[in-house]
């Protein structure tokens, strides 16, 4: 009984901030009022037609899409090497691949600012992609590892004894069978990149402000129901992606072993 009541209270604590954002976007007043005074959807229209919002969403989408593809490709080839070949230093590289998780993202972000400035990609899409790829790589490795480890090599052998050359076995048998892991890795990397602020805040330039940064900047400058609508839209998009991820893999198992965003 005690456990249940406490749990409900804590769940309430977890839900209220999100409700506040949603409610703040519904008010008819020009300032934020929670609970809202009257209900309107026009702040959503406002947000969607806002140039800053659209530019931010576009930058975020481009960065997240490239990050997702790059991370998945890198992680696939990395995990394949580790799972399928014996070589000296195999356990060392496995440990190293998870190292970005042990360093606070803010610390990595500061370092990235220095390094990206040095090679001249600070403030560009390239810089953002590099940063986001580094932090999503460990998660992609996990998602893909479990699906490659779960792939019965006898199935591949069955294909090769039936006459399929190695490339064909890879394309027709192995990859289709690990596709759920690849999709999960890609969706997850997309999510990490799309929502990230800590890295982006150091690496984004004037023309590469991501959507979370747009929201953050407005939090500082002009808090309004329109901002709440933007935030709600970002949350809604995330939830849609998570629902897709959940169908592929089960979000809980994907997330339960580390920090995401």
């Amino acid at each position, binding site marked *: 009984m005690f456990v249940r009541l406490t749990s409900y209270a804590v769940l309430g604590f977890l839900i209220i901030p999100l409700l506040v954002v949603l409610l703040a976007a519904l008010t008819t007043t020009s300032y934020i009022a929670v609970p809202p005074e009257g209900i309107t959807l026009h702040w959503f229209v406002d947000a969607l037609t806002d140039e800053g919002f659209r530019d931010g969403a576009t930058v975020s989408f481009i960065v997240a899409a490239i990050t997702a593809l790059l991370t998945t490709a890198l992680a696939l080839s990395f995990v394949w090497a580790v799972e399928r070949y014996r070589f000296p230093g195999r356990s060392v590289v496995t440990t190293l691949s998870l190292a970005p998780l042990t360093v606070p993202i803010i610390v990595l972000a500061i370092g990235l600012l220095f390094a990206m400035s040095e090679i001249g990609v600070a403030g560009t899409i390239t810089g953002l992609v590099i940063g986001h790829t580094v932090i999503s790589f460990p998660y992609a490795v996990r998602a893909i590892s479990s699906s490659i480890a779960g792939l019965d090599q*006898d*199935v591949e*052998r069955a*294909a090769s004894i*039936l*006459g399929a050359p190695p490339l064909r076995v890879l394309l027709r048998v192995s990859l289709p069978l690990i596709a759920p892991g690849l999709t999960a890795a890609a969706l997850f990397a997309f999510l990490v990149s799309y929502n990230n602020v800590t890295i982006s805040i150091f690496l984004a330039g004037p023309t590469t402000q991501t959507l979370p940064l747009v929201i953050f900047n407005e939090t500082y400058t002009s808090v309004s129901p329109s901002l709440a609508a933007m935030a709600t839209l970002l949350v809604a998009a995330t939830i849609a992606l998570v629902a897709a991820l959940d169908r592929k893999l089960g979000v809980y198992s994907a997330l339960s072993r580390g920090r995401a965003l």
Partner: protein
Amino acid sequence: MHALRERLRRGRAQEAPAGGAAIELQGIRKRYEGAQVLESVDLTVQRGEFVCLLGPSGCGKTTTLNVIAGFVEPDSGTMLLDGRRMDGTPPHRRHLGMVFQRYTLFPHMTMFDNVAFGLRIRRVPRAEIQERVEESLALVGLSGLGRRYASELSGGQQQRAALARALVVKPSVLLYDEPLSSLDALLRREMQVELRRIHEEQGLTSIYVTHDQEEALVMSDRIVVLHDGRIEQDAPPEAVYRRPRTRFVAEFLGDCNILTAVVVQSERGAIRAEIAPGWTVTVGGVDVPPAPGSLVTLGIREEHVGIEPVAAEASVGTVRNVIYRGSSWRYYVGLHTGEIRATHVAGAAAIAAGEAVALTTRPEHWFVLES
């Protein structure tokens, strides 16, 4: 290149000469991380034969099969397939068929696509694929299930489909890696008979790995017993069963008595040996008779030991324990030194524990084991 593909497409089995060696292994050795897995294996499989590789886990039988398939590169030795050396030839160019222990149907394809896989790789025309896949599914009793996925089939059906997938390309040799071990006992027996039937009907050459001696006895033309990477015996089932060559083979096949005896008389083809005080037996069919006075290891199957109750003075031992085994009784008879087991068909009343018994055996049922 084109000629090769054409040959692969039509299947090599039909044009290969009847009789003659399909597979020859010469001096195959393999070492894994310090452990010798295969120590010089020599094996010839004739076209049309059904050969079982029998042995406990870790004996090297699966490694031998993998060498034949090309999944494992031997450290030394040669393998010939239809007289051609296969050194360095990858599995996909060997034109073999294989059925695995685990279910290995491609889970993302229907049965039809699974079976058609090998044919599509060989660029067989569509119409012919349709015809051959259906023929193959019918052969294994899965007609009409072509649109199902593996997850919609039972274990037995999955293995049948895996067999159809291997058969449809008309492989020169069909390899089986304990394909029935995950099925239940009843289904396993049924499938054993069925695999044997298909082997004969299709004129296949089959190499079958198993750790189940009964399976090997039921199915094969020849049994090759492997132990610690070496061939212990290579003979037809009856010979392996009735005259195991080594102690390991006798023990592995089970239900065998293994006893040490002193040779008291030795002549051409037969010896007399004393097993226990008061019990001397005649052993027939001994090629190289050991000298009198030497020790030999003798074996005899439990069902070949006759027992009858006698007066204590005439007895060689006493029944210590009787176990009911459904179709038979098993007696544990204590000798003056050691013990012997005898199995008798259940029916007549059992001899009770504690009774004194005499033992009767026939010379041809005994065999001398190599030490």
